[in-house]
């Protein structure tokens, strides 16, 4: 089985649930307590793709929340094969942050595989993101997932989708 390693960065505004999403995907665990990420937190997870005979290891860079990136964040993003943009479904303003970050990344580093996660699906009563908002996202991102790090809903599928995109991009490049 071929072994491939890819760098994936999770980006988004403050407290949208980036670390929780990563924790759910890597360790299938969720914590109610909020600990802000300083700098970057790194995890890895291996995904088997039997039909391609590939063992795909994702090195996940969970980057501290920000509305805009500075030099340090860009240094962290350098060489990423894919991005996971995380939006807080209970705060519509975080959509704008995600779009800004996407613009910055595209300007500075060029396009790459990406998905967007509208997170905190479990907090339906506080939901702010409207259908039109989602449509706006879909116009910019090929894949939009409504996820809950708390319940694990759609999280794994989103990562797997991104991983698949990365592999397709790599194969296309070859």
């Amino acid at each position, binding site marked *: 089985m071929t072994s*491939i*390693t890819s*760098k994936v960065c999770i980006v988004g505004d403050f407290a949208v649930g980036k670390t929780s999403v990563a924790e759910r995907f890597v360790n299938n665990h969720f914590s109610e307590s909020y600990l802000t990420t300083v700098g970057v937190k*790194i995890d890895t997870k291996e995904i088997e793709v039997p039909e391609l005979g590939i063992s795909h290891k994702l090195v996940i860079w969970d980057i501290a929340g920000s509305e805009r990136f500075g030099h*340090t964040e860009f*240094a962290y993003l350098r060489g990423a094969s894919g991005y996971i943009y995380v939006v807080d479904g209970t705060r519509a303003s975080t959509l704008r942050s995600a779009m800004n970050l996407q613009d910055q990344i595209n300007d500075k580093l060029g396009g790459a595989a990406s998905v967007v996660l509208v997170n905190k699906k479990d907090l339906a009563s506080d939901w702010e993101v409207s259908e039109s908002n989602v449509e706006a996202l879909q116009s910019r991102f090929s894949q939009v997932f409504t996820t809950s790090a708390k319940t694990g809903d759609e999280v794994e599928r989103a990562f797997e989708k991104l991983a698949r995109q990365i592999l397709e991009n790599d194969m296309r490049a070859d």
Partner: protein
Amino acid sequence: MNDLDQLKELLFGAEKEALDSISRRVERREVRAADVADILPEAIHQSHAKDDELVEALTLPVGECVQRAIQEDPETYGNALYPVIGPAIRKSIMHTLRNFSQQINEAVEHSISPTGLKWRWQASRAGVPFGEYVLQKTMQYRIEQAYLISRENGLLVGHVHHEASKIKDSDAVSAMFTAIQDFVKESFSPDRTGRLESADMGEFTLWAVHGPHALLVCVIRGVPPKGLRADLSAILERIHFRYGDAIREYKGDTSSVPDVDVELERCLRYEARRETSGDRKKSRIPIITLLLLLAVAVFLGYRSWSHAQQLDRLDAALAKTPGIHVTDIDRDGDEFVVRGLRDPLAIPVAEIAESVDIPAARVNAAMQPFQSLQPEIIEARAARLFGRPQSVSFKVSAASLHVSGDAPWIWRQQLRSRFGLLAGVSELDMSSLTTSDRLSFEARAKQLTGARFHFENGTIFSPGSEDRLVKHAESLAALLADAATVGYSVAVLLQGSADLTGDPALNAVLVRQRAEAAAAVLRLHGVEPVDILQAPAGDSQSRPQSDMDRRYVQVDLQLSSLTDP
């Protein structure tokens, strides 16, 4: 204005204005300063980029400026340097202490070994301090792990490690090191050209060697020598030469960099000279053997010395023990063999050995019995032969046995009669021996002699007199029973007396009858009087007496010693 001036005005009017303007600018100091200020930064940049002339020109004045400024306002400069000085000093001290402690360890370890002596000589020839020389020679370090990391994306290109090393998720380590590298660069290098090249973590040192496309990070245990970095750079250069394009385009597919781990393995060959497997072990073997032999020799030497000491102690103890004569004493392994003569009354050899801290089990005594004539043994033999009353003691001197204390008279007689059995002495001195039982007997006899028992008229005892005679007879019987034990024979004499009235011839008969009456009482108690006497006539006249006082029988005792006192 003349024609010439008008002509000049027509021909050079514009140039003249320009010249006047330039002249005014040159003459006015503030304008000149503003002009220089405008171009100064750019001029400095250009000059600095061109060559070092500007730096050389500024070195002296800038140095003097700084010096003067510090002298005039030291506090400001102190505050500015404070955040830098502390860590710098700490780092310097830690580095120095680390090297120093290692130098001491090495120096101590090698100072007395053959290698140490050789190195000491070589260090003195080279004029290098011994500690430093030892450090150069040993340089304890080992590259435990080597990571080859893509500079572009932080992905791990290759990773090798020693089998014993504990390995975490190497991809995460690679990414995290890259993140730290980026963080340090962004935070502490204003122009982002700085690079994290080393980090210390406890006993490990991380060294990062930077190449155009990849970063070689080595985890080193111990203190690596400076020259190692050049070797690691050479390895990284070789990797770039072979895989440069693949690493530049690296996207996480390890098949694009085949056998890169083989190249990385070269890093792991770098380890301390002392830990290069067999050599160290081989060199240790003779030393260990030597140390073991030395330990055995020391042990045997000590044991031999200890045994010799014990032998001397045992010999001395036996020599001063009465009744023992040693003809041969020797050591047989752990055992002491003693041959000679021993009086049965002497202290056993095993007991003597234990008194000088030698276990009895380690003494083999082959002693022949004999009769010792040493005073202590003669005294012991006398005690065994004669028995010895508690208060009696024997002392042998000058062929005489001196006996002192108090003993029964009969024991004294037995000692005298059996003295000839005791060998080694010819005289018996009992001048200090008392026989208190004989003296006591004499006192009792004295008390009982001369007792009188009175009569009424005729042969009738006065009231109470007969009872007293009975008691007296019992005491006499007891005395007579003891007489033989103290060497006396006792004769009981009865002497009768009568008053002066009546016929003397009749009185004489009466006296006799009274004595017989008393004798009868005595005989009843086992006391046989040997003689009955009549009191002399003069006695009755000696002092005025009543008739009753003259009517009595007196019991007297006569002691005769059976032997010489």
